[in-house]
């Protein structure tokens, strides 16, 4: 990994106003729509913003493949894996900012938690959002940039809703939610608010991380293989 490239990539993330504003604005809007009273919902929506941000690396990858930038990089010592890692880390910086913005809005609206719990939730959100970068990479190495930008945010939003990040789900919906990656991530992100960690949620996160990383690695290898 190259530090100059990483710094430049982070600066580029904040130059693409349209995409980063969406990431920073959408979660507060969702928060206003669902109405804030419970800390659980604030944390869930913060996680949603972080997932939006980290999957955003996929659009960048798709665009840069189309522009021949990834090919250009192959004429340098930078390895394709380091390129992907750079894209993911830059997206995770945006994800961290999104989490801070959403949690700060929650606090401003009267959600009262001890600082250690706020910090724990913020870190938990950030960590469990990371595997979704693999979903972004998978899409970025699979699809054209137009398709990635059109598909990824709606898919993430749908996963967030169906995984119970916006409103708690009961009955059959609640049962099916447990199968989605957003459910496990949500449970772990909210863990600092409760006592104890759900073993089912841990299993969910571990399994989905494996699936998403395997999918991303498959497309990544396909794309970077010398033919």
């Amino acid at each position, binding site marked *: 990994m190259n530090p100059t490239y990483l710094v430049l990539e982070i600066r*580029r993330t904040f130059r693409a106003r349209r995409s980063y504003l969406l990431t920073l604005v959408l979660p507060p809007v969702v928060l206003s729509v669902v109405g804030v009273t419970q800390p659980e919902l604030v944390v869930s929506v913060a996680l949603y913003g972080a997932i939006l941000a980290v999957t955003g690396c996929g659009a960048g990858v798709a665009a840069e493949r189309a522009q021949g930038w990834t090919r*250009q990089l*192959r004429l*340098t010592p930078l390895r394709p894996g380091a390129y992907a890692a750079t894209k993911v880390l830059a997206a995770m910086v945006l994800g961290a900012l999104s989490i801070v913005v959403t949690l700060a809005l929650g606090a401003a609206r009267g959600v009262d938690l001890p600082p250690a719990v706020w910090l724990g939730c913020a870190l938990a959100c950030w960590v469990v959002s990371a595997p979704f970068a693999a979903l972004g990479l998978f899409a970025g190495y699979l699809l054209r940039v137009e398709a990635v930008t059109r598909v990824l945010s709606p898919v993430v939003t749908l996963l967030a809703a169906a995984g119970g990040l916006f409103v708690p789900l009961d009955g059959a919906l609640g049962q099916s939610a447990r199968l989605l990656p957003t459910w496990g991530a949500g449970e772990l992100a909210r863990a600092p608010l409760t006592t104890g960690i759900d073993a089912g949620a841990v299993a969910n996160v571990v399994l989905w991380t494996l699936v998403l990383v395997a999918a991303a690695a498959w497309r990544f290898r396909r794309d970077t293989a010398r033919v």
Partner: protein
Amino acid sequence: MTPAQETHPPALDVRGLVKEFHGREVVRAVDGLDLRVARGEVVAFLGPNGAGKTTTIDLALGLARPTAGTVRVLGQAPADAVAAGRVAAVMQTGGLLRDLTVGETVRLTAALFGTGHDVRASLERAGIADLERRRVGRCSGGQQQRLRFAMALVSEPDLLFLDEPTTGMDVMGRRDFWSAVRADAARGRTVVFATHYLDEAELYADRVVVVSRGRVVADGTAAQIKDAAGVRTLEDAFVRLTSAVGTSAGGAR
């Protein structure tokens, strides 16, 4: 042969190179190509579309794997020579991020090759030092091509490939680009360029290599190639050489 050439491996050493693409049918883009380029030579690589020029360059840059045969670049495997910055390339299109500035692009390229590379010198030699703060997306086609040239110069490569570098440029853009390349080649860099402009081959190359259907069909100075074909212009020689193969199975080569 001078002592330097005996002790140093050639800049480019291509032997029996074959590259097939397997799609609905098998396409043999490169079909037993042999080529040696000594250090310091400026070689024009001519051929009609689909002759295998770009595929050969891709193989020499380690971007693709040969089906058969070998490519050695400065005595090394292509991917190793690329990673060491000893070989670089200017592609026809793409390879740039439009939202970066010219200076950022070259500084990033330099950073990827490690420390100690002179960004300013690369910009100056490519003739774009005054464009350092301009966004890549706001540069003209010719300026973007000189930016690609500056990026290629950053690692001080011994061998430089230019793949149809002036396609789509206006006359002034082409002239500026070639004067930058010529000034640079005068310092001893080996340059191999593919082009469709025969005047560029005649003006700027020490040696002209004509490929057709994945093979070398003529190799020499522009004058030698015209003489051998018995024609007065390089264009006539080119037409004769590249249409002779393939018009009939038993055609002259």
